[in-house]
C-alpha cells in the first residue's frame, strides 16, 4: 500500500475513484446543467461553443504611448480584450514627479497622471469591441472615473459601456500591497464604485475579487476561493447597507483566480466555487436574477508556479494552466509569460502566451464541449469535497469575526505567510518537487535572457507631459473640483461624481489621492508574524 497523498487543499487523493466515492461525497445534487442553477458545470448552456474565452494579457509599461503601441500589437495578433498594468506610483496614488516615485515611473506598468494619459493609451481602440480591464486597486475609484470620463469624451454612452476594474482592496492588504487608505474607508470606496456603477454604468464590472494574490501569498486553493468569497460578501454587505438590492449589483461582480498546482484540484476548485457562490447569492442574499448568481472569472495566471530556473519550462507550465482554465469554464484568460518571473514580458513572450490560448481554441477542441471533465468520478468527488472544504474555511473566518476584522488585525496575513514559509521549506528540502528548482536542475550558464529595458528618459518624458497638462488646464476648475472631492469625502457621500468631475478637469491622480488622504488618512500596516 502506497503512502497517503494529500493535496494542497488538505484533501486525500485516492488511487481510484468510482461511483461510490461520488455518492459518499454528496452525490450529484449540486451538479445541475450548464447555464442553470447552481451553475457548477458552467454559467452558460453552450459555453465556448458560442464564444471562446476572452484573451486578455496583462500589459503596460513606460508611458501611455508605448503601451498603446503594445495594445495594438496584441489586438492585431488576435487578442480580444485588454488588461492594463499600471506602474507603482499610479497604483499607490502618487504623481510621476513625487519624490517617492523616483526610479519607479513606468517600471512595472504604464504611468498615469491625468486623463490625458488615458486618452493616449486607448487611442484607436474600439471600446465596444475590445473590453478593457484595469488592474488597479488603491487608486481604483479615481481610475474607474478616468476610464468612464475618457469613454464619455469619445462619445460612448457609459450606460452601455462594458469593462472591468480589479478594485479589490481587501486582498491588497493580504497580498500585493498597493493600499493607500485605512481598511474602513477603503471598503467604503469600493462600495462607492459599486453603487455608482449600478446606477450610472450598469454594464461595467467595478470589482474583480481576487483569490489570485491570496494564493500567491501562501493560501491553499480551497482557502483562495473561500477567502475571496468572504471578501465578496463583505463588499456585498456594505452595498446592501446602502439600500441597494442584491440583483442591482451582484451580476456585475467578477472574480480573478490563480491556477498553479494539481490540475484536478484546480478544476474541482472552480466547479465547486461556481456552485457555492451561486448558492450563497441565492440562498443567503435572496437574489432572484440568475445572472446575479454567476461566478464570472478570469483565470489562467499562476505566477507562483513559474520559476526563474530554466525559464523555457514556463511556456509548458503556461500551456497546462491555459488547459486547466479552459477545462474549468473561465470567461477570460490571461497567462503569465515565460519571462515574467524576472522581467516585463517581451513582445515575443506575449505572443507565445496568446498563441497558447489560440492553439487550445483552434487545434485542441477545448471549445467544443461544455465541462468536459464532468462525469469523471474523480473530478465530481473532488468538486464536492472542495465545496465542503471552502464552506468549512468560510465558517472559520466567520467564527473569528469576519474577513474585514482579520485583515485589519493582520491575522489572515500572518496565517498565509506562515503557510508560504512552510511551503518554501518543503521546496528547499525537496519534499515538494519543483522541476528545475529541486529536481532535474541543470548547471545553468549565464543566462542570455532578454530583459525589458528601463529608460530613465521615460520618466523625464512623463514629467514633461504632466507639466504640459498642468500648464494647459483650468487651475480654478481643478481647485474647485478637488475641494468637492474633499467635501464629499468628509460628508460621507459617494465620491464618484466628484471624482468624475475632478478627472475631467485634469486633476492628477496624486492631487486627488492627497485630498482623500486629508479625510481618510493613510493605512498603517500591522506587522504580525
Amino acid at each position, binding site marked *: 500500500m502506497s503512502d497517503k497523498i494529500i493535496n494542497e487543499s488538505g484533501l486525500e487523493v485516492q488511487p481510484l475513484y468510482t461511483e461510490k466515492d461520488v455518492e459518499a461525497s454528496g452525490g450529484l445534487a449540486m451538479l445541475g446543467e450548464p447555464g442553470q442553477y447552481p451553475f457548477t458545470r458552467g454559467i452558460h448552456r453552450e459555453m465556448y461553443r458560442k464564444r471562446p474565452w476572452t484573451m486578455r494579457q496583462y500589459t503596460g509599461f513606460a508611458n501611455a504611448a508605448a503601451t498603446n503601441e503594445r495594445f495594438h500589437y496584441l489586438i492585431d495578433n488576435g487578442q480580444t480584450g485588454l488588461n492594463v498594468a499600471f506602474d507603482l506610483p499610479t497604483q499607490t496614488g502618487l504623481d510621476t514627479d513625487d519624490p*517617492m516615485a523616483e526610479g519607479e515611473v513606468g517600471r512595472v506598468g504604464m504611468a498615469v497622471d491625468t486623463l490625458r494619459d488615458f486618452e493616449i493609451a486607448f487611442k484607436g481602440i474600439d471600446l465596444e469591441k475590445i473590453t478593457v480591464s484595469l488592474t488597479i486597486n488603491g487608486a481604483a475609484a479615481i481610475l474607474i472615473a478616468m476610464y468612464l470620463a475618457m469613454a464619455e469624451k469619445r462619445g460612448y454612452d457609459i450606460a452601455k459601456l462594458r469593462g472591468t476594474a480589479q478594485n479589490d482592496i481587501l486582498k491588497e492588504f493580504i497580498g500585493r*500591497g498597493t493600499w493607500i487608505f485605512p481598511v474602513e474607508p477603503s471598503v467604503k470606496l469600493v462600495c462607492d464604485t459599486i453603487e455608482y456603477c449600478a446606477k450610472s454604468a450598469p454594464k461595467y464590472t467595478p470589482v474583480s475579487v481576487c483569490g489570485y494574490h491570496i494564493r500567491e501569498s501562501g493560501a491553499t486553493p480551497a482557502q483562495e476561493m473561500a477567502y475571496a468569497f468572504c471578501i465578496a460578501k463583505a463588499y456585498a454587505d456594505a452595498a446592501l447597507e446602502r439600500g441597494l438590492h442584491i440583483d442591482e449589483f451582484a451580476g456585475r461582480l467578477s472574480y480573478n483566480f490563480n491556477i498553479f498546482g494539481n490540475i484536478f484540484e484546480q478544476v474541482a476548485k472552480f466547479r465547486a466555487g461556481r456552485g457555492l457562490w451561486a448558492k450563497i447569492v441565492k440562498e443567503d442574499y435572496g437574489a432572484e436574477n440568475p445572472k446575479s448568481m454567476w461566478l464570472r472569472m478570469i483565470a489562467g495566471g499562476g505566477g507562483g508556479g513559474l520559476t526563474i530556473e530554466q525559464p523555457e519550462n514556463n511556456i509548458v507550465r503556461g500551456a497546462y494552466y491555459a488547459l486547466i482554465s479552459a477545462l474549468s469554464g473561465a470567461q477570460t484568460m490571461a497567462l503569465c509569460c515565460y519571462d515574467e518571473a524576472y522581467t516585463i514580458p517581451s513582445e515575443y513572450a506575449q505572443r507565445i502566451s496568446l498563441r497558447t490560448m489560440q492553439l487550445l481554441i483552434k487545434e485542441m477542441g477545448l471549445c467544443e464541449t461544455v465541462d468536459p471533465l464532468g462525469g469523471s468520478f474523480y473530478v465530481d468527488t473532488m468538486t464536492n469535497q472542495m465545496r465542503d472544504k471552502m464552506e468549512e474555511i468560510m465558517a472559520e473566518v466567520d467564527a473569528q469575526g469576519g474577513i474585514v476584522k482579520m485583515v485589519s488585525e493582520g491575522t489572515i496575513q500572518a496565517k498565509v505567510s506562515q503557510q*508560504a514559509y512552510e511551503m518554501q521549506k518543503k521546496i528547499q528540502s525537496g519534499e515538494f518537487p519543483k522541476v528545475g528548482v529541486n529536481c532535474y536542475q541543470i548547471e545553468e550558464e549565464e543566462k542570455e535572457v532578454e*530583459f525589458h529595458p528601463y529608460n530613465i528618459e521615460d520618466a523625464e518624458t512623463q514629467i514633461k507631459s504632466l507639466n504640459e497638462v498642468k500648464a494647459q488646464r483650468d487651475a480654478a476648475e481643478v481647485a474647485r473640483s478637488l475641494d468637492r472631492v474633499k467635501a464629499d469625502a468628509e460628508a460621507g457621500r459617494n465620491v464618484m461624481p466628484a471624482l468624475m468631475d475632478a478627472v475631467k478637469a485634469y486633476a492628477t491622480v496624486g492631487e486627488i489621492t492627497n485630498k482623500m488622504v486629508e479625510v481618510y488618512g493613510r493605512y498603517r500596516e500591522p506587522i504580525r508574524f
Partner: protein
Amino acid sequence: MSDRKIRVLIAKPGLDGHDQGAKVVVRGLVDAGFEVIYTGLRQSPKAVAQAALEEGVDVIGLSSMAGSHIPFCKKLKPLLDEYGLSDKLWIIGGNVPAKDHEELKEIGLDGIFPTGAHFDDIANFIKENVK
C-alpha cells in the same frame, strides 16, 4: 563576541507590495536564531537607514521584486555613510538579475541572494560575515 543575537533588519524598499518573499525570509532567519526586525512595505531610503540606526542592527537586508533595486541602493548608500552604518553587513534578495550584481557590489552590497536562495545560505553568510 557576546551571546547577543545577531540583529537583522529586513526592509521592503520602494513602492512594490509583493512581500511574500520578505516575510518568508524573516521567518527563516528567526528560525535560524537571529533577531529580525521587519519594516513593512514602502520604505524610503531614509526610513531604512533610520530603522537600521534606531534598531541597532548588524545586518541591513532589502527585499526587492519590482526592479528598482539599483536606484534605491544608490540613494541608500550615502545615508548609510551619513548615519555611520557603513560597517554593517548590507544584503539584498529577490528579483535581482545577474547582470546587476556587479553594479550592486560596487555600490556597497556585501551579499546578493536572488529568488531561490536557500535560508541556510543566507544564514551562513550572515554568521560568517557579521563583524
